[in-house]
């Protein structure tokens, strides 16, 4: 299972790529493999504010709907519109084209509270 070293992770299987004061968020390779066949993504609204661990998006497979949580506190500044036409990008490229949204973090220190790659690998082992 692919777990890139340069990302941060949550227990609920989101990943975070820190880009300055922004955090790009998606779901992990492990999560997409468990969900399989993503058929619909409900994106957050630009400007929406969220607490850490706030429910912010929904990813639906054929079988079920799964909530996606904000890894850190912040404001949504960008969403991946490509997922509206092609939700399967989450399956084919979870850490790249399959990103879901970008948060402007209230505090960049917050990412330090997330898991690093080694800790996440242990969590899904």
């Amino acid at each position: 299972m692919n777990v890139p070293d340069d990302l941060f992770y949550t227990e609920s299987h989101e990943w975070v790529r820190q880009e300055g004061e922004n955090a790009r968020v998606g779901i992990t390779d492990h999560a997409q493999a468990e969900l399989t066949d993503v058929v619909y993504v409900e994106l957050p609204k630009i400007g929406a504010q969220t607490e850490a661990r706030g429910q912010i998006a929904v990813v639906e497979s054929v079988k079920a709907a799964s909530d996606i949580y904000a890894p850190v506190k912040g404001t949504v500044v960008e969403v991946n519109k490509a997922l509206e036409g092609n939700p399967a990008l989450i399956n084919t490229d979870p850490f790249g084209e399959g990103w879901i949204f970008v948060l402007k973090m209230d505090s960049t220190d917050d990412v330090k509270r997330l898991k690093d790659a080694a800790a996440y690998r242990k969590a899904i082992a």
Partner: protein
Amino acid sequence: MTPVSDAAQKKTPLYEEHVRLGAKMIPFGDWIMPVQYSGIMDEHQAVRKNVGVFDISHMGQLVATGPTAGVWLNEMLTNNTQKLEVGTGQYTFLLNESGGIIDDLIVYRTAPEEFLLVVNASRTDEDFAWLERHRANDLALSNRSADYGGLAIQGPRVVDLFQSILGDDVDLPPRNAIVDLAAKGKELLIARTGYTGEDGVEVFFPTKDAAMVWNEVLDKGKALGIRPCGLGARDTLRLEMCYPLNGSDLSPEHNPIEAGLGFFVDLKKPKFIGREELVKAKETGTANRLVPFRMKSKGPPPRPHYSVWRDGEQIGEATSGTLSPSLNQGIGMAYVAAPHARAGTEIEIEIRGQKFPGTIEKKPLYKKS
């Protein structure tokens, strides 16, 4: 993502095979079953285009034997067992006194005085207890579920597959019929039926043979594009055909008339459990009807328990829902108030507080082109 607890979970004789193939296993009633192997979409398409194999060993087999077995079953079940020749079967319901559905099942006449009931896994013990309680003294009833393993082999290439397994000397039985290969020295029952809308069979064999039969089917099916298929594809395939799922679309709170399945109820029979209520339902109509529906836009797929609306008024609730892999659109079934239960009616499905447009459709939702 949640580890499956092994407490009180029954495994079919194919459990090890599923794990070896990398299936994702989930609890299903008392059972632990494969939900998917290669993926629901891929498995679904394999059944629509080629052939797929499902483990149905969890399903129950009840056998009623005796000179009066047919007459007795006619008072227990809604369809007419007197119409069954030896070697044929019919879809039917087991009802409670108020006409509510205990189970939907297929009953086969396997000998002049012997009937095989293939019932839902989650209802096997309940069905058996109910039938045993109502059993006439001069017939025997046995629960043979633990003795049999079973596979559903479904898809347009099923005949080719059987030819390569059994050779030319075994013909598949016609639709709804069953053959026992005991006469040919094989412990195998083959029934031409299924839950997918494709040509197919359900086969039953002694539990000890399960892995052998499964692997033979997968091996011979390789050249035909076979896929092992899980409960996920089983659900999308049956829902495209509007075949009901007991526990979701059917329950003791609903009767077969409400569910639009009156075709499998013979009200001309003078007596069967639940008859009075069904006669009433037929005469006065039911408050609600089970209808298929299809979403109009590329919104989120519908799911069970989502509410159904029309002109700002809630008219019902979905009992099944998914994204149809064949139609690439949300589909489902819902009980709606009878005045709205007409094909073509525009409805809305409420999903996470937002309403999405859909249409009530005719059965089936998917037709082979």
